[in-house]
């Protein structure tokens, strides 16, 4: 299957970002990896894509606790962006948070595809990518 064009990592922890980038690069399932170190930077990237009429990242891994704009605040702003309904993009919340309330809040957000533990494992990445592709193919009109 053709790899994804772009994955966006949103996390303030540098080592976590390097590890995730390596897992993704080794999997060969994404052509490019972008990194934002808080919600604001991620929003800036998406807004720039929209403004330039570029394709958005297909998969966003979003941390919850970050200095500046955290994951949930990012989701509030993301919901207000003018993103077309046929855009194929999934957001996966990445956290080690043990708080039940964090899980509930993430699951209640319609823009959150799923919730998974940090650090990201290869198997989980493959599962998410293939889940995304099946979903995209199901939504596409039959060629």
């Amino acid at each position, binding site marked *: 299957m053709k790899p994804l064009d772009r994955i966006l990592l949103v996390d303030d922890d*540098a*080592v976590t970002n*390097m590890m995730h980038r*390596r897992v993704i690069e080794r999997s060969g399932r994404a052509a490019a990896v972008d990194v934002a*170190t808080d919600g604001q930077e991620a929003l800036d990237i998406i807004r720039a894509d929209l403004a330039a009429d570029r394709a958005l990242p297909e998969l966003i891994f979003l941390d919850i*606790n970050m*200095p*500046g704009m*955290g994951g949930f605040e990012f989701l509030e702003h993301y919901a207000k962006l003018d993103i077309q309904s046929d855009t194929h993009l999934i957001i996966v919340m990445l956290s080690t948070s043990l708080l039940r309330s964090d899980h509930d809040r993430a699951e209640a957000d319609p823009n959150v595809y799923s919730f998974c533990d940090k650090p990201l494992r290869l198997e989980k990445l493959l599962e998410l990518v293939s889940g995304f592709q099946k979903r995209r193919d199901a939504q596409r009109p039959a060629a």
Partner: protein
Amino acid sequence: MSSYVSFPQDASLDAIQSGVKAGSEQRLSIDRVARLMPGFVYVFNHQTFSNDYTNRSVGEHLGYSSEEIRAFGSSMMMQVIHADDQHLLEGHMARIGQLADEQTATLEYRVNTKQGTQLWLRSVDTVFDRTDDGSVLRHIGVATDITAEKNAGLALTRLNAELEQKVAKRTKDLARLNVALEDRIDARTAELQEAVDELEQLTYIATHDLKVPINNLSRLGLMLINGGENLTHEQLEQIGWMNRCTDQLSAKIQGLVLAAQIRLTNGLPREMLKLVECVNDCVTRVGESKGRLKLPVTVDIAPDLVVHFARFELESILFSLLDNAVKYAEPSRPLEIRIQAEEIDGNIALTVSDNGTGVDPVRDAQKVFGLFQRAHKTPAGSGISLYCAQRMLQRRGGAVSLTGARAQGAQFTILIPTKEETNEAA
């Protein structure tokens, strides 16, 4: 009482007051006045100890016939005046004997009616005439039925007494409830204290015990790199990341130890501290910590303003606030810091204002004061100092609050109570 010695007689006022010289019309008028006057008018003779005049029979008013009254004879007073009030008569008579002309003496007393009910009367007496030696020969008086007002007064007194009883009972109930409530609060406080102590002990032990394996991990990482001639570039890089994680872990644990240790400063004694001196010392210390930098700080604090606080804690709080103001300077404009303080409503309020990168009081408050949380991405920080500052203030009845706006600056205000107050559970 004189008015009750009510011999049936028809003496008229003019007959006994021989000195009155008046026409027949006026005599008739005085008679009418006396007869129609509501209440009993009487003239009592101190020599015969009986009434020389009454305008109507008190006895009849009380339900006794003329015959019955006659039958009472000289025991009339004893018959009609309430037994409990008879002792008042002697004193009243003595008082009348001492009256100057136109002075009055008043007495309120109960009388028994034939029907067995009680009436209250009020007699107001004054001297009518005197003997040659000046002593009182007769007094004139008027007695009024005050049963209604007396009963109302008595009812009021009774109600008051009942009310007082109720209040006393309610007060007692409340006192009992208060004691019960205090007992419950004490018990709950003790439970909470125990939980807090246990939690902090746990944190302390855990963090200390965790340090050994972390230090070992850190050492092993270095050993791997030092002996890693045969490792690939990628493997070396990963070992580098591992060591960074170890450092992060070590820093977090150090933070937890610091936060847990705040409790250990609990017993530090409060001192009377001159605020302006503490602030100036702190400005110097923060400047030194930034490489002997002369800080752009304006201090506006009255020289005699003192706070009652633990010196170490106050210095630590001031250092955090000032250090943050310097750390989060906005690079595009020269930093300005202003520190001012005043006494407001029983608190010393000290504000540190800056024109730095700023914070949003609503969005950022939780991150600013939360343990390991930070409102800014850069520069790096541990998210510990303001958490500790807040805890130290709250524990001694104080507070810290935040105003300002992102990109415009921040104002941190701390409140320190001027009077003793502790909040040990905070």
